[in-house]
Every structure is written in structure tokens, then in C-alpha cells.
């Protein structure tokens, strides 16, 4: 793809074997990119089918059972196959070693294994779709999931296997960050994306195994009736919910923390200003990661759990809001007196601020006990989590994808179209999901295939919005694919960023750097380094060869 004669990781070796057996973190990232994008596409198409079905209060396209399978698959694919691996496995794999000046992740073989495990898990999920599918919702609540027909076992087995992929990535990142930082890269000189990835990995390590055991117990319950979750056998369905949310609440921060890391990078780079409150942002990531383990019960306020437990969970839920707020305020302060350019990554970052803000505050509403009793399992919750997941994580992902695209492929995309698309998706998104907040407060329950006539107008608006999102993504697919083949060659550092990945060529050479980088300045020291924006020339002050350093001594 790259026409220049220089050797880089894309053209260093050829043939499908050199890809399928590669140990290069950059190539593994690319493998992940295609796999995950495929599933995002599938999940997105399912979403459009859901929205089409909901155009009218009566049946439009499919029957009740098919509809139930649609939203289950949409949820399960989006969560387990797209958003949880998304940022860490694609962008994290690609840039994290580059950012901290390492030649690779600590365990390249494990890294490749995680991709194969991911593919295996997705095969199980696909297998369950062709053999009767699942209609339980992505939460697999018992006793429905232990009694319904369909292939729940292969789907949950798939989820179990996907967990390993997630664990492998997390393990790799933690060790990489601990052990492979370049000389001079102290913890506080690490870019904030690395902090975000670190906090994410901690959650992946601590929470994912519990998902694993939950899925095993669910399978055993379904197959043998072991009596832990199924009341018919003496089990407690609410206990299942504890197990499930012990993983799945922290998992929502697996989704958002890396996105927040990207936003920190992008806002600082596109404001050309030193990030405000570096330590506050870094430690709030860890804070969120830790507190996230204490709040899972807020998904169960009306489940019949103890009122006292509900009180504790509600209280702790609010604590999570504080560090998220700290981040938002620090990003704002970073832009203050900066030199802001609104290129497409920054536009996505601004979308993030807006949409995640709404998503976060509505999370606070759901955390308030009495209000949640009204809103639980209505479209308000649906809107909340799309605002944080699609509006938060996916916008962060898109910001990162546009930001690092030149580095990944050595090509630029069409900036004008990228900006137009950002606006289209923003508008379509708000149309789709803001209406759902109102549906929710009015009492429209979720997972409803037919509904009362009074909700129709808002549902119709929402469906139209989803088509606009679909249009946006289609344009994006076109200009990104176009860029792969026809894009202008990218320079080393198109945005004038100061982190290490921009000091190597675009795309990077096979072993990341020609010479081992040695870190002198912080990742955001825009006050110390003058950047001539117009020519986009970046003075390479940070890359000094080891020999140079030694001469210097």
C-alpha cells in the first residue's frame, strides 16, 4: 500500500503468513482492526433493523422472537466483540509500545494468541447465531436464560473465551508499562493514554475472571441444574445479577477509560498546550478503576435486593462521578488560552465532551435511588448507555482513529469529508438517542417489540436519526478506504504532537524506532517547544540516540 521505498512494518515482509503469524504488535493491531470493524458493522446493521422495526407500534419487519434475538445479538456483539476489545486491542496495541518507546509489548506471542482467542470466541458466538440464536438480552438473566430454548450455551461459552482475549491484552499492557518504558520515561512522563490503558488493564485483570466463572456457572446451571441461579433448583436469580454486574459494571469503565485517555491526548495536541492537571487526570483514571468495583448493585435497585445494600451501592455510585468530573474540568482548563485547531480528531473529541457529559449526568440520575425506580429498564437507560458508549467510547475511538490513522497507514484521509462526517454523526446521534430520554421518562420500557401508540412519534424520530448515523458511517467507510489506496502520504508528525510515536516514520519501521529513543521532555511540553504550525515542522529534540547521550556525558 505504501508507495515510498522505505521499509516499514507494512511492507517489511509479505504474504498472508507474514500477517497471520506475525508477532509485531502493529500488525496484530491491524488484524484486530479488521476483525473488530467487521463486528461493529454487523452490530450497527442489527441496530438499524431494530430501529426499523420500532418505526411503528405494531410489527413492521420481524416477529417478536426475531426481534428479541436482534437486540440480544446487537447488545452482545457491540459489547463483547466491539467495544471492550475495541480501543485497547486496536489503538492500544498499535500506539502503546510506540508511545512509551518500546520495541514491542512484553509478550508478543501472547498478544497474537489474544487475537486468535478473540476469533475463536467470535466463532462460538456466530455458531450460536446459526443454531437457534439467543433471545435473553446481553445480560443473560436467569432463570430466563436457563429455561429458554436457543443456543445460550454456545453464546456464553463464546463470551467466556472472549474474556481470555481481554485478559491477555490487559496482562500484556501492565507488564509492558511496568518494564519496557524507554530510558528517561518516568511514570509522570508517560502520555495520559498510557495511564488510561494501564487503569483499563487493571480492571480487565480483576474483573474479567469473574465474568468467566459466571458464564461457567450459568452453563452448568443450564446443563445440570446445579442450583445456584435457578430458583427451580433452589438457586437465587438475584445472585446471578450480582455475579454478572460485578464484572459488567467495571466493564463499562474498561470501555470508557481508554477513550478518556485518547481525549486527553487529542485535546492537548490540538490545543498545543500543556495538559492541565496531568496528575489529577492520571490518578482519576486509577480512582475510577478502583471505585468501579464497588458500585455494581446500582443495576439492581428494583431487583428485590436488600434496601441497605441498595443504599450503599447508590452512595458509592456518586463517588465515580467525581473523578470523571475532574477529567472534564481539566480538559476544559487545557483549552483555556490554548491554540485550538478544530481538525477532525478534535471535532470528535468535542463530540465526546458533549455526549459523554450528557451520558454521565444521566448516569447520576440513574444512580439516585428513587429516580432509578422510575427509570430502570426504560428507554432512559437505553439512551444513557448509548450516550456513554456510542457518544463516549465510540467518539473517543473515532478521535483516536483519525488522530493515529496517518501513523497506522502512512496515509492521510480527506479532512473535509472527515469534518462533515463528524457533524453528521453528531446530529444523527442526538436525534436518535435524545428522543429516547424522553421516551424513557414517559415510561416506555426497553426490550419492547410492540408498544403503545402514544410513543410512536418519538420512536419515529429516533429511527430517522439512526439512518443519519448510518449515512455518516457509510461516508466514513468510503473516505477511509479511499485513503488506504489513494490517500496523500503522511508526514512523520502531521499534528505537531510531542509524544514518541510521532518521532518515528509514518508508518513506523518494523522495530518501531531506528534508534532507542531517550526521553528528555514531558509528553506535552508545548511551552518549551516552539512549533511552526504552518509548515508543520516538528523539531526533533526528544529523539537522541544512545550514542549521543553517551557522548554528552
Amino acid at each position, binding site marked *: 500500500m505504501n508507495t515510498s521505498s522505505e521499509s516499514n512494518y507494512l511492507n517489511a515482509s509479505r504474504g498472508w503468513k507474514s500477517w497471520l503469524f506475525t508477532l509485531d504488535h502493529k500488525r496484530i493491531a491491524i488484524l484486530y482492526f479488521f476483525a473488530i470493524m467487521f463486528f461493529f458493522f454487523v452490530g450497527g446493521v442489527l441496530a438499524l433493523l431494530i430501529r426499523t422495526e420500532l418505526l411503528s407500534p405494531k410489527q413492521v419487519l420481524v416477529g417478536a422472537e426475531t426481534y428479541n434475538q436482534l437486540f440480544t445479538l446487537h447488545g452482545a456483539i457491540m459489547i463483547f466483540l466491539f467495544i471492550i476489545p475495541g480501543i485497547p486491542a486496536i489503538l492500544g496495541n498499535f500506539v502503546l509500545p510506540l508511545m512509551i518507546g518500546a520495541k514491542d509489548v512484553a509478550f508478543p506471542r501472547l498478544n497474537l494468541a489474544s487475537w486468535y482467542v478473540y476469533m475463536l470466541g467470535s466463532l462460538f458466538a456466530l455458531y450460536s447465531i446459526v443454531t437457534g440464536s439467543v433471545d435473553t438480552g446481553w445480560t443473560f438473566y436467569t432463570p430466563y436464560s436457563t429455561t429458554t430454548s436457543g443456543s445460550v450455551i454456545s453464546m456464553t461459552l463464546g463470551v467466556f473465551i472472549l474474556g481470555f482475549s481481554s485478559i491477555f491484552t490487559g496482562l500484556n499492557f501492565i507488564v509492558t508499562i511496568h518494564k519496557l518504558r524507554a530510558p528517561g520515561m518516568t511514570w509522570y512522563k508517560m502520555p495520559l493514554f498510557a495511564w488510561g490503558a494501564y487503569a483499563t488493564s487493571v480492571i480487565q485483570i480483576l474483573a474479567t475472571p469473574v465474568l468467566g466463572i459466571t458464564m461457567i456457572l450459568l452453563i452448568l446451571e443450564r446443563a445440570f441444574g446445579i442450583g445456584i441461579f435457578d430458583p427451580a433448583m433452589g438457586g437465587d436469580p438475584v*445472585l446471578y445479577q450480582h455475579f454478572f454486574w460485578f464484572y459488567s459494571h467495571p466493564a463499562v469503565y474498561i470501555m470508557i477509560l481508554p477513550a478518556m485517555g485518547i481525549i486527553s491526548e487529542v485535546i492537548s495536541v490540538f490545543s498545543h498546550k500543556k495538559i492541565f492537571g496531568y496528575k489529577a487526570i492520571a490518578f482519576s483514571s486509577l480512582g475510577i478503576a478502583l471505585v468501579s468495583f464497588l458500585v455494581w448493585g446500582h443495576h439492581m435497585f428494583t431487583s428485590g435486593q*436488600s434496601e441497605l445494600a441498595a443504599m450503599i451501592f447508590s452512595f458509592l455510585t456518586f463517588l465515580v462521578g467525581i473523578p470523571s468530573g475532574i477529567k472534564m474540568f481539566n480538559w476544559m482548563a487545557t483549552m483555556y488560552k490554548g491554540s485550538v485547531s478544530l481538525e477532525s480528531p478534535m471535532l470528535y473529541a468535542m463530540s465526546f465532551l458533549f455526549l459523554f457529559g450528557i451520558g454521565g449526568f444521566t448516569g447520576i440520575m440513574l444512580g439516585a435511588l428513587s429516580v432509578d425506580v422510575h427509570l430502570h429498564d426504560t428507554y432512559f437507560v437505553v439512551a444513557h448507555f448509548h450516550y456513554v458508549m456510542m457518544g463516549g467510547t465510540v467518539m473517543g475511538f473515532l478521535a483516536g482513529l483519525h488522530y493515529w490513522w496517518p501513523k497506522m497507514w502512512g496515509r492521510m484521509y480527506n479532512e473535509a469529508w472527515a469534518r462533515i462526517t463528524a457533524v453528521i454523526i453528531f446530529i444523527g446521534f442526538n436525534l436518535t438517542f435524545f428522543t429516547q430520554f424522553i421516551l424513557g421518562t414517559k415510561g416506555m420500557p426497553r426490550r419492547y417489540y410492540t408498544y403503545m401508540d402514544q410513543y410512536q412519534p418519538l420512536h419515529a424520530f429516533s429511527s430517522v436519526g439512526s439512518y443519519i448515523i448510518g449515512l455518516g458511517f457509510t461516508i466514513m467507510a468510503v473516505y477511509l478506504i479511499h485513503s488506504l489506496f489513494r490517500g496523500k502520504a503522511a508526514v512523520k508528525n502531521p499534528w505537531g504532537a510531542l509524544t514518541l510515536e510521532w518521532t518515528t516514520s509514518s508508518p513506523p519501521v518494523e522495530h518501531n524506532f531506528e534508534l532507542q529513543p531517550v526521553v528528555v521532555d514531558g509528553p506535552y511540553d508545548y511551552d518549551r517547544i516552539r512549533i511552526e504550525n504552518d509548515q508543520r515542522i516538528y523539531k526533533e529534540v526528544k529523539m537522541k540516540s544512545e550514542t549521543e547521550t553517551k557522548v554528552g556525558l
Partner: protein
Amino acid sequence: MTQHNPQSTNHVLPLKVYFAVGAALFVLTAITVGVSFIQFGAFNMVIALLIAAVKATLVALFFMHLFYDNKFFGAILSISLLFVAVFIILTMYDTEKRAAIYQEKGGPIQKEAVIYQEKAP
């Protein structure tokens, strides 16, 4: 920290230490089995867990070399145990306290039972 000193990680413990720890573990196993035959009510559980904790600590400190190794590994282990505790405690805070307001809500589930019966008015 000692972690960058290869000497300390290659630290060879005297055989004595291994055998002493092994012997202690055998003895503790015998004690815990013996004690379990005496009735202390709820304390049986406490005693059994305490002894198990001591045994586990011995294994971790000496067989797994945590005593001599990088302290960070010990921290990792402790953190994981902390989260196990969080899981157990918060879950049981629910399952044990369900009857706090309504008596009917508490209690375990009966096998195959439809506990919905006509209550005398």
C-alpha cells in the same frame, strides 16, 4: 528497592527453611483436622479459616519467595485478595439483609417450591 539486584532474586534459601516450612504446614493440617472435631459452634469456621490463612501465608512467603522477592508482587497478591473480599462482603450484605424491611423477602429459596400460597387474611 531490591528488584534490580540480581543477587537478591537469585537468593538461595537454606534447605532448613524449606523443611521447616513444610513441617509447619503438616502440623497445621493436623491441628485444623483435630480442632474440627471439637464443637465451638460458629468459631469452628473462624478457627479453620485462621489456620488456613496462616498456612497460605507460609506458602506465599517462602515457597513463592514473596518474603525475599520484589515487594510489588506481594502487593499484587494482596490487592487481588482485597477484591475477593469486596465481592464476598458486598454480595452477602445483600443476601443476608434482605429481610430488613419485610420478613417475607428474606430467607433461602425452597427447592421446587411455589412459596406463593394463600396466606390467612
